């Protein structure tokens, strides 16, 4: 069959070659995520053994990042060849940035790659940063000079650029994500079952009418009809009954919900041939989860309350929509309806009607929010699709606050973790030890390739006095000293996979990136994420 296929010009039918190449990832982050990737420009500031950064880049070049630049002054040596896959025999003695760029580009012809310093370029690192096109994200591998780190941090602040620090030594590693200001994510890809919001306690007129109409003969209808009432209709009917016998109050307290659940269960017909009804069982099962008051999730409350002092940021479509949704919420005392309806036992025709009732309500709510958006300053150009997405994902929107507000100091976090470890020592293997010692030991060598265990301990206790004399911290310091600042390819490959994953989340603004440090222990194949 292949021969014939080749005779047909591919342009005539089917998705483009690029769509076919990226098919398996488009199913995760869709065309919107892909186009964000393709317009991104990544800077890697490489140093040390330089493998972990290149492994990360490989994982970004493959899915089609737009552009990358490697800044690295190192010349390729024999030991580089043993640890870095993107260097071969012919690379020896040449610029590491240039060789890696060349080999990485072979992975994907769609990607553009640059390197610094080019021969004869007299520009300083600072000059290079200032004259380059803006970078979407910057990652740098340790060790790095304090001066260079300062330049990158200034750049990040000035251009609102996310920075990712990576350190891989022996079996240990960590990476640290610094997001500029507030970083909102609308498309968090929540689990589909979690997104259901049936509004059983605040039904709108059309929904109530529909349920009333369907259940007006509930006691006399035949078994077939009774056994196909959708759970939404069943619950609305019995909630109404409940209210009549409870002074108009809904079952909110746990005890009341139990009683309500029994009420629904008792209403199930058991004298039929099946001895029960699937739809009623579904309704009984849905009571605890779906008979709930509409609430405002903490994450969204945080968005509503977030002050965004940066005026430029405040006019971004996200904040304009967030403000409109807040107004909607204040006016209606509920969030916009999401419009999704889960699978349930029902006749096809009934299910589709019910589905349309939810969809129509979601559409009207989104339209109301859009009106609010349009009337806000700068809201004229906001894409209605973005408003719809915000409305349907509202309960799952996540705001990562990059600013260091209320964050505990390293010393405080360490003391807390060491305290937990005392419990862990008694609790046994179910409670793992903290990986903070690895982070402390590695950050002691942020600016220097090698150090003795003694030097490392001195640096740790200077920052965290409580660390003095702690056995596990000393062990981590010795392990880092033993590795002599060298990378293991395999460990860097794992960390490179994890860093690239987080970079993709940040660039596509989909899924929730870690906040903000991930420590990896390759001896135990274990990670810990901490806010540091």
């Amino acid at each position, binding site marked *: 069959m292949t021969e014939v296929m080749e005779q047909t010009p591919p342009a005539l039918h089917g998705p483009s070659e690029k769509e076919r190449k990226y098919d*398996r990832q488009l199913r995760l982050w869709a065309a919107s995520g892909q186009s964000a990737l393709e317009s991104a420009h990544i800077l890697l500031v490489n140093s040390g053994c330089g493998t972990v950064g290149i492994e990360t880049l490989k994982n970004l070049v493959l*899915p089609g990042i737009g552009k990358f630049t490697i800044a690295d002054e190192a010349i390729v040596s024999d030991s580089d*060849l*043993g640890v870095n896959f993107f260097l071969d025999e012919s690379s020896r003695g040449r610029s590491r940035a240039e060789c890696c760029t060349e080999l990485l580009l072979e992975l994907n012809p769609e990607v553009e790659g640059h390197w610094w310093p080019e021969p004869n370029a007299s520009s300083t690192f600072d000059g290079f940063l200032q004259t380059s096109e803006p970078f979407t994200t910057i990652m740098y591998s340790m060790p790095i000079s304090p001066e260079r780190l300062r330049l990158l941090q200034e750049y990040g602040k000035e251009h609102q650029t996310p920075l990712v620090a990576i350190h891989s030594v022996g079996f240990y590693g960590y990476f640290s994500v610094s997001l500029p200001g507030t970083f909102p994510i609308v498309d968090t890809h929540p689990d589909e079952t979690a997104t259901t919001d049936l509004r059983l306690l605040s039904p709108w007129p059309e929904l109530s009418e529909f349920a009333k109409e369907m259940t007006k003969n509930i006691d006399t209808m035949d078994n077939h009809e009774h056994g196909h009432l959708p759970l939404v209709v069943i619950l609305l009917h019995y909630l109404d009954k409940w209210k009549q016998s409870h002074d108009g109050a809904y079952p909110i307290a746990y005890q009341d919900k139990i009683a309500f659940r029994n009420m629904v269960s008792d209403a199930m017909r058991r004298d039929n041939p099946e001895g029960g009804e699937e739809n009623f069982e579904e309704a009984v099962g849905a009571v605890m989860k779906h008979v709930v008051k509409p609430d405002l999730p903490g994450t969204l409350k945080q968005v509503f309350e977030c002050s965004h002092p940066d005026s430029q940021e405040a006019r971004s479509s996200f904040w304009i929509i967030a403000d409109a949704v807040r107004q909607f919420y204040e006016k209606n005392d509920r969030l916009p309806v999401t419009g999704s309806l889960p699978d349930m*036992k029902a*006749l*096809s025709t009934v299910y589709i009607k019910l589905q349309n009732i939810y969809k129509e309500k979601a559409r009207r709510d989104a339209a109301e929010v859009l009106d609010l958006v349009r009337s806000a300053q700068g809201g004229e150009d906001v894409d209605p699709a973005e408003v719809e997405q915000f409305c349907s994902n509202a309960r799952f929107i996540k705001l990562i606050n990059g600013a260091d507000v209320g964050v505990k100091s390293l010393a405080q976090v360490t003391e807390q973790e060491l305290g937990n470890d005392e419990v862990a020592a008694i609790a046994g293997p179910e409670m793992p030890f903290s990986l903070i010692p690895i982070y402390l030991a590695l950050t002691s060598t942020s600016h220097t390739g090698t150090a003795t265990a003694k030097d490392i301990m001195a640096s740790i206790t200077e920052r965290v006095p409580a660390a003095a004399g702690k056995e596990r911290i000393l062990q981590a310091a010795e392990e880092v000293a033993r590795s002599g600042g*060298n990378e293991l390819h395999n460990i860097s490959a794992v960390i490179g996979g994890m860093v690239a994953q987080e970079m*993709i989340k940040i660039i596509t603004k989909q899924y929730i990136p870690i906040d903000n440090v991930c420590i990896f222990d390759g001896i135990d194949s*274990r990670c810990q994420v901490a806010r540091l």
Partner: protein
Amino acid sequence: MEDKSANAGTEVPAPAAAEAPAPSHLEKQEQHQNAQEQPQQPPQPTQQQSTQRQPPQEQVAPTKSTPQRRPQVTPRDRFNHQSLGVSLNSNVKQARVLMVGAGGIGCELLKNLVLTGFGEIHVVDLDTIDLSNLNRQFLFGHEHIKKSKALVAKDAAQKFNPNVRIVAHHANIKDAQFSVSWFRGFRVVFNALDNLEARRHVNRMCLAADVPLVESGTTGFNGQVQVIKKGVTACYDCTPKEAPKSFPVCTIRSTPSQPIHCIVWAKSYLLNEIFGTSEDQAVFDHSEDAENASEIEELRRESQALKKIREAVGTPEFPRMLFDKVFNADIERLRSVEDMWKSRRAPEPLKYETLMDQAKDATAAKSSVLANDQNVWSLEESLVVFNDSLERLSKRLLELKNAKEESAPEPVITFDKDDQDTLDFVASSANIRSTIFGIDRKSRFDIKQMAGNIIPAIATTNAIVAGLCVLQAFKVLKGEYSEAKEVFLTPFAPARLLAPDRSREPNAACPVCGVFNTAVTVDPSRTTLHDLVDGLLRKHLGFSEKDFVLNNEVGILYDPDETDNLPKKLVELGIGDGSFLTVIDEDDEDAWVNVVISVEEGSFGEDESPFQSSSAEHPEIPRKPKKAAPAETNGAADQNGDDAVEEVGAPKGVKRTRPDDDGGQPLKKARMAESAGDDIVVIEDAGGAIVIGDD
């Protein structure tokens, strides 16, 4: 392409299998030699012996140093030496390992193995490279499309460490050449596979050979790694795996209520009836047929009538004939069965003529309709694609017919998710049928995922999982099984990212690893079944006081009432190199677990015993756990590969949890099965969601 991976040969119909290039001669020869040299070795050597036995540097090494002799550290190896430590590093340098699968996880793994310096790496993969692999399988480029994954991966990886020996096999891991004794020659085996069946096979082989297996899989952002060591940790089959989904015939043919029902109809029924051999049975669940006997009979008649139309393939009338048959006449017939539509919306038949009139605009915009992957086609647009894909497929079929040799079988076209013609036909037919039944239409992009059981796959997840595989292999090399972890990627638990767990213990009732494995060397043209039953089982293994049954993959060879085979030579019974025999203890009390014997060939002198056992005399065979599964009926199948998917997994007739199809639900996000990696593939003809990833 991925569909054919390890399934070819068993699952895929002949034409598709024939498309896969034959294994290269060179590699075949090499394997052959390998297989031949094995029987001369002492049976069941310890792992240490088996590694040393293999000269790790057979080829002329381009560098002067041989790592295992010289403690000196080359600059290239400096970091490994320093961080792994001398003992582990030299263990790694001497290790001979097998990697099954050179796809998503495989490419990453091979890179890691090469740079960690594993001494000798064998790579087995049947698959060829496809465009959709290139977003993650970084050892492959555009110029490699349609070439062997194993061979290209070897060439690409080799130049990054000349001290490592890589041997590539473009072949199916289930081939007989990859015998138990061949597996025994490896220190560690890595599974980097994309399908259940091949995973199960390697699991069984590693258990039989007692070689540790590092099993891995990925699906989207999720992934998993586990170490399987016989008797120490749980094996792949210790927990039951999700079975392929199937649908009642009537749901697909008469009363669809979800998009997937129409997609399965288009793919497994319509496409096959017109261009394939016949309806694709695997996907149909016949357990309810009896209740619907009259409808089933009608459906049979309908299929017969459709076969007649098939004669008209390629004629200008064909699209109209087909359309009016399946979207009009058959629908009218269904409508007339009034009982069926009491609680369902009755389908609305369509007329080709009428719809063509409405489709003028869509016809004019044909090329943009065909290029539209993500949006849902209208009914009229679906018709345009239906006609166009039918034309393309008819043309192809006629060309195949003209090109075929006299004696060759009739050519067929089968579904392949990356074959645009079949995908267009399935997508458009499914959408037209959905419209008729009042079901939501889907975009071609979504239909491709559902029909092809595509599991999302990305470089990052594979990179993480492959790296974790090597970390687990370090524990294996050090013999620290208690330190080996079963690691899960938990991308949506932002406090962890990785969740390592202690390895699970073997399930005593597991039909695959809860057995006693042993091996026997025989001369099939001389050794008789009596030699085995009396000499090996009764005298040597200690079955003399017991009632037992001896099975092979075909059925019973011997039981106390079935003694006819005893005088026969093994060759007459089809037993030879690579065969598995299962002994089932029939005692009610204190019964032994099943004994699985892997057969290897050798020759013996006239005065020597006609077989040689790998076990010591009267080995300690464990007792069956109290609540033993009734293993008698399928005991043989448990170890003997090919049909194990059906036997071990849930049988085909498994009912869906919601047998009533009245609910017109939206299709749930396809939750593909368990582990995956790369491309997913599914067992091609299991229209439902069997799983599987990574190739």
